[in-house]
């Protein structure tokens, strides 16, 4: 991808490489060196080299996300989505869910669209493994309301899935 090498100080480059490695999904593992270089170019272009860790993470994140979107636009199929280890290894997953996951996922996304706005937002964050306190913070409401929206929203979502022939 990159035909040349740019460099910041060694400590920053080591951190960038580590951050890119932590953020990028497994299927992008071969690209991590290039992604680190792209992040370094971004930093050099910003004119700042004394960036705190939080900002280095943000730049690494931005480079990784842009790359994922490029791959998706090129129609590279068969990529494994990132998900917490707990979820990937969950005993709750049936063989059918594992093998038909993408198909069920597409139905799930269309079912979500049928929920009212507040419930859909809360359930979306819940499906992203956010806790109730995190959901309340992101949505700007109190925890009781966030919990209620998730609970009612999940009920609605299950009804929608049943109507589409899926038993959640």
């Amino acid at each position, binding site marked *: 991808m990159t035909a040349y090498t740019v460099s910041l100080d060694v400590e920053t480059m080591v951190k960038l490489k580590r951050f890119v490695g*932590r953020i990028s999904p497994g299927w992008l593992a071969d690209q991590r060196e290039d992604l680190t270089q792209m992040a370094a170019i971004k930093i050099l272009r910003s004119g700042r080299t004394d960036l705190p860790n939080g900002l280095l993470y943000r730049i690494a994140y931005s480079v990784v996300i842009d790359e994922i979107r490029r791959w998706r636009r090129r129609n590279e*199929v068969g990529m494994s989505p990132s998900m917490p280890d707990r979820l990937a290894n969950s005993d*709750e997953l049936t063989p059918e869910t594992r093998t038909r996951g993408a198909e069920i996922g597409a139905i799930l996304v269309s079912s979500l669209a049928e929920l009212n706005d507040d419930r859909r937002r809360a359930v*979306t964050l819940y499906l992203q493994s956010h806790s109730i306190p995190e959901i309340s913070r992101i949505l700007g409401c109190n925890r009781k309301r966030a919990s209620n929206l998730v609970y009612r929203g999940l009920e609605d979502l299950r009804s929608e899935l049943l109507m589409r022939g899926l038993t959640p």
Partner: protein
Amino acid sequence: MTDPTQDDPLRFAFAKAFEDARPGEDCPGADQLWGALHGVSSVPERLLIVDHLSLCPVCAEAWRLGQKAHALTEAAV
């Protein structure tokens, strides 16, 4: 919602939707996703981002990676 694993099949399916998805022209930038995750953006802006996540598995994937980065950032600072 007392058992955190109870809805794992739904979470798994939501993540797997990414495999067949394509980004659209109206996808928020990585900086916007980051801002919403870190509470930098306003509540109305965050709601717009969450609305988009419910429709776009590619951005939902980016959000999950951002969650991981968010946790790591907190640990690193």
